[in-house]
């Protein structure tokens, strides 16, 4: 059931065919089906021909025991009498009896002599017996009596043999039909399997050939094959996302970094051409060094964002105390806030255990605090809080008293390099919230933005970072 079995080599094809899962499943089905048929046939045989055989044997044995009793009570005469009685009422004409003395002379019964066939071990045997010139099969039971006398009790087994041959012929034909059905069923099974898998296999081939937009078509059955297809589609969507992310980075780098690079170059060229003295030349160069540092940091930030979005850092997750991280962040930014005349209000429980990337979480919180400090005017308050909003979740919230973001801007806040109008003049590349979003996603969470004081003229922004506390 390979997708491309058009290569040359007949034997190779046959080998592949035999190894294919479809063939093996079909073969398994056929074997099981035939085994079931065989079981059925054996049960039937046992129930019919087998039962008949057992009935005959039981009758013979009962007869023999009865005659043995007669021998014990009355010797030869009693046995002859008993045999005579039995034969007299033997309507079916199936009974066979013979009583001989030690010399082999017939004393009673309807068989003229002891069978000449060699004695098989055990008391039972199957012999040929003549009746009216016709040879018929017989089932015979030998019972040695004392003083050398021997008793033979048996039944004509013609009917039994007829039933046996009838049954075996029927069963043989049934088996042939069963084999045909098994083969047909196996072929149908194999076809069904191939059909179900064809969609997924074809999609995979197309994707391998380069068409990444293809997805596995799903039927309405929602069975295991559809689940496989759905998983493949989810995987492909994720790959799509990652590729868009990477492309986004390349686009951003190409488009948005050209400006600062061009600026730096212009400054240097300008200084080369028209700087009045060495001092201003130095000054231009120093500014350019700072510019280049800035560009370098933007690169770093972009790479961190992509790293976070790709999810690779999940492998390095470790348990840490979120409360400790926030304490540190508050300490680092507290001094800055104080210097700007801002109050930093904090509120969180003593310990907030979680599993994740400590550095990334600090970076996200630092970015949020950075924004809050940047936009809150002197005298204002920044609130930093954290807690457990639900089982398995942690939240970190930063509220400021700046101009806030309009709903439209909020939607675009996570875009790389997006700057809302009020912030265009302020330093920063516009990557801060982008990273926060990426960190949230890395920790199975999200970033929610809303007005800190709804309805006020300057509503401020409340940024709520939600994280999963478990890996």
């Amino acid at each position, binding site marked *: 059931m390979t997708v491309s079995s058009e290569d040359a080599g007949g034997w190779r094809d046959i080998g592949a065919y035999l190894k294919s899962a479809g063939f093996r499943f079909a073969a398994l089905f056929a074997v099981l089906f035939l085994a079931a048929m065989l079981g059925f046939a054996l049960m039937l045989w046992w129930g019919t021909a087998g039962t008949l055989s057992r009935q005959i044997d039981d009758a013979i044995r009962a007869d023999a025991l009865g005659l043995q009793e007669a021998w014990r009570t009355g010797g030869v005469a009693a046995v002859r009498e008993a045999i005579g009685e039995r034969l007299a009422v033997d309507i079916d004409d199936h009974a066979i009896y013979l009583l001989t003395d030690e010399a082999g002379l017939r004393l009673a019964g309807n068989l003229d002599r002891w069978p000449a066939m060699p004695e098989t071990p055990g008391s039972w045997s199957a012999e040929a017996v003549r009746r009216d010139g016709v040879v018929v099969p017989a089932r015979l039971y030998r019972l040695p009596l004392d003083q050398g006398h021997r008793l033979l009790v048996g039944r004509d087994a013609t009917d039994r043999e007829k039933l046996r041959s009838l049954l075996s012929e029927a069963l043989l034909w049934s088996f042939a039909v069963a084999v045909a059905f098994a083969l047909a069923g196996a072929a149908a099974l194999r076809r069904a399997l191939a059909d179900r898998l064809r969609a997924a296999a074809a999609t995979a081939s197309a994707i391998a050939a380069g068409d990444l937009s293809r997805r596995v078509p799903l039927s309405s059955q929602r069975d295991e094959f559809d689940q496989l297809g759905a998983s493949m589609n989810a995987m492909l969507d994720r790959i799509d996302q990652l590729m868009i992310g990477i492309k986004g980075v390349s686009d951003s780098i190409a488009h948005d970094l050209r400006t600062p690079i061009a600026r730096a170059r212009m400054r240097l060229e300008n200084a080369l051409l028209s700087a009045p003295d060495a001092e201003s030349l130095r000054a231009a160069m*120093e500014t350019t*060094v700072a510019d*280049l*540092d800035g560009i*370098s*940091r933007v690169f*770093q*930030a972009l*790479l961190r964002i992509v*790293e976070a979005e790709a999810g690779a*850092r999940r492998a*390095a997750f470790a348990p840490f105390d979120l409360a400790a991280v926030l304490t*540190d962040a508050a*300490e*680092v*930014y507290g*001094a*800055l806030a*104080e*210097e700007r005349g801002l109050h930093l209000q904090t509120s969180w429980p003593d310990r907030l255990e979680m599993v994740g990337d400590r*550095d990334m979480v*600090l*970076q996200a919180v*630092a*970015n949020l605090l*950075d924004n809050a*400090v*940047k936009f809150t005017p002197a005298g204002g308050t920044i609130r930093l809080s954290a807690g457990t909003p639900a089982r398995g979740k942690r939240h970190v919230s930063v509220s400021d008293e700046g101009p806030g973001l309009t709903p439209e801007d909020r939607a675009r806040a996570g875009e790389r390099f997006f700057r809302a109008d009020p912030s265009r003049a302020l*330093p*920063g590349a516009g990557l*801060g919230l982008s990273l926060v979003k990426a960190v949230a996603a890395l920790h199975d969470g999200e970033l929610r933005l809303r007005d800190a004081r709804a309805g006020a003229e300057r509503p401020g922004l409340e940024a709520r970072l939600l994280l999963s506390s478990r890996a």
Partner: protein
Amino acid sequence: MQILLVEDDAEVARFVQKGLQEAGHIVEHVANGRDGLFLAAVEPFHLLVLDRMLPGGVDGLRIVETLRSQGNKTPVLFLTALGAVDERVKGLKAGGDDYLVKPFAFAELLARIEALARRPAMEVPATKLTVADLEVDLLSRTVTRGGKRIEVQPREFRLLEHLVRHAGQVVTRTMLLEKVWDYHFDPQTNVIDVHVSRLRQKVDRGFDVPLIHTVRNAGYMIRADA
């Protein structure tokens, strides 16, 4: 100090070598890993500055691993464009002592080199650190200057302690972030400056001689003015 620089980029090598020599160090430079490993094993250096990606089949990581397996404890600073966190971890795990990512500011490189070189001397446990009339008592966690007790918060104490341990050396903002706060992150604004200036208020205000100095484009340094 005798420094071995193993760097295959000629421009970077020239830049670094010139800068370090001007700072008073003797710098030997090779451009491939094999020669670097050989020299490092054979000649005594105070410090090695290694690029990670080197031609010749032997890269920076391998050099350090080999040296460490031979019992060579010379301090190593990686200077490399491989900046991702796991690369940094790889470098430090292999036996490196510090890790600086390109592009870098020369002042940062110099500060870190001198910090590394100073380290062995300071391994001797000290209970008191002194710079001019400033005394930092590590046991009681107190700071006194000219006999007068100065109240500092715990974090400010650690900041001061770090500066004093590297008295006379440049300590960059990144180094402070890493050593005093134990984080690798990039603050958008110069939050560190605010902390240092608060500390400076407490330590230098009211005294004739300022001890904490800002080094332009580099960082900070504590020293008694010569």
